[in-house]
């Protein structure tokens, strides 16, 4: 019988370490890890923690490229540790570091709160004049399959922060919103149920918004979900320009379905539970650059 056990190789992991209470800055620690084909970087980190160094810290959860927790700098390139196979990117050595452009909390754990603060600023939810319909809907909104395609690609974002880490503009300009929040803005602007484009434009059209992007394309190149943030940002720019020049097609948020059997709430649908988390107050340093930004109920 043929031996199907995969061949093992030893890869030297060069892992960035940082402990805020013990060190002033990060340093690199090396580990020799036995690796077999199909093993992911996350598997390698688990192997280090189990067998070599139990103090190593990182953030991960789903192990299948869905939660976006394990974004790291792998051989100088942002990516998900759980979907990156070691032998695909390393022959003998592999460097593993925290995502750049984010402060390091410890070892491989970046502080993503700056990204989520910016995400909140673009109002990443459907905004309508008939707000009561959102919280207490009386029926379905009409949206065709073609209209869905205008934004479907951008809904796959898992907020891993890889695009923010790869963006060269964000590397030198901390005020820039970055690819992820701008993609979220375009995702909702392109949604025919939404009417909040003007509200978002106060932030996305400002000096820290979409116009700062010069299409280096790194965000799209590193995105582990194929969201193509560079495309979303360019489409957002076009939207802003056409709106500024009053050339945009006039459109209202879509109406509810009409006709028999549609447009009404189906019975026995459970009502939404009460909010368990209060709306968070926006940080002062973010609000001062976007005067119109307001806190909305999530």
């Amino acid at each position, binding site marked *: 019988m043929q031996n199907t056990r995969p061949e093992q190789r030893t890869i030297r992991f060069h892992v960035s370490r940082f402990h805020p209470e013990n060190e002033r800055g990060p340093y690199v620690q090396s580990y020799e890890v036995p690796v077999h084909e199909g093993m992911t970087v996350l598997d390698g980190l688990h192997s280090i923690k189990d067998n070599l160094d139990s103090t190593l810290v990182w953030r991960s959860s789903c192990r299948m490229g869905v939660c976006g927790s394990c974004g790291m700098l792998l051989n100088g390139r942002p990516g998900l540790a759980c979907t990156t196979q070691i032998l695909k990117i390393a022959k003998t050595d592999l460097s593993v570091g925290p995502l*750049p452009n984010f*402060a390091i909390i410890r070892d491989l754990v970046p502080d993503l709160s700056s990204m989520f603060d910016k995400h909140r600023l673009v109002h990443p939810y459907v905004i309508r004049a008939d707000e009561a319909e959102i919280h207490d809907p009386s029926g379905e909104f009409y949206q065709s399959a073609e209209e869905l*395609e205008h934004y*479907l690609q951008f809904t796959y974002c898992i907020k891993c922060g890889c695009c923010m880490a790869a963006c*060269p503009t964000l590397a030198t300009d901390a005020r820039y919103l970055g690819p992820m929040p701008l993609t979220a803005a375009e995702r909702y602007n392109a949604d025919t149920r939404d009417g909040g484009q003007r509200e978002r434009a106060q932030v996305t059209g400002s000096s820290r918004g979409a116009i700062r992007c010069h299409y280096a394309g790194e965000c799209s190149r590193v995105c582990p979900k194929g969201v193509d943030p*560079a*495309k979303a940002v360019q*489409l957002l720019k*076009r939207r802003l320009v056409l709106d500024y020049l009053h050339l945009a097609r006039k459109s209202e948020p879509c109406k509810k379905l009409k006709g028999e059997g549609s447009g009404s709430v189906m019975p026995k649908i459970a009502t939404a539970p009460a909010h368990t988390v209060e709306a968070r107050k926006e940080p002062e340093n973010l609000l001062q650059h976007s005067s119109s930004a307001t806190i909305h109920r999530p």
Partner: protein
Amino acid sequence: MAAARHENRIGLWGWIGGGRWGIERYAYSLHRLTGLAVLLYFLLHIVVTSLRAKGIYLWTGSGFFHKPIFRFGEYLVFAAFAYHACNGIRLVLVELGVAIGKPIEPVFPYKTSLRVQRPLLIAVMIVALLLLAAGGYSGLTQ
């Protein structure tokens, strides 16, 4: 007490750390560098021409401004301007949604708008090279 953080912003290295990454990143970095170079040239140009008000004519006679190294410097400024202008046109087109395609369903292996606009980038680079060649020929024959 909040725990200490270590800032990890990569700064200017983010511009030039293209490494094995895509051609658009090099185009981006060069666009920024040529923009700064042309801006610096304009500032120096204003300084030099404003000296005329004080009766100083730096470009007359056979001084530094007539040496070959200065002529070469002028050509570099022209090259920076030509590249920045051509690439700027590409960026304007892309920002207006030209040559980037429509949103698509992300199916692995993922396709990005970068590949869609690559022909535009190549065309623009060819135009920039033609301008550089024409500028160089013009400079040599004068």
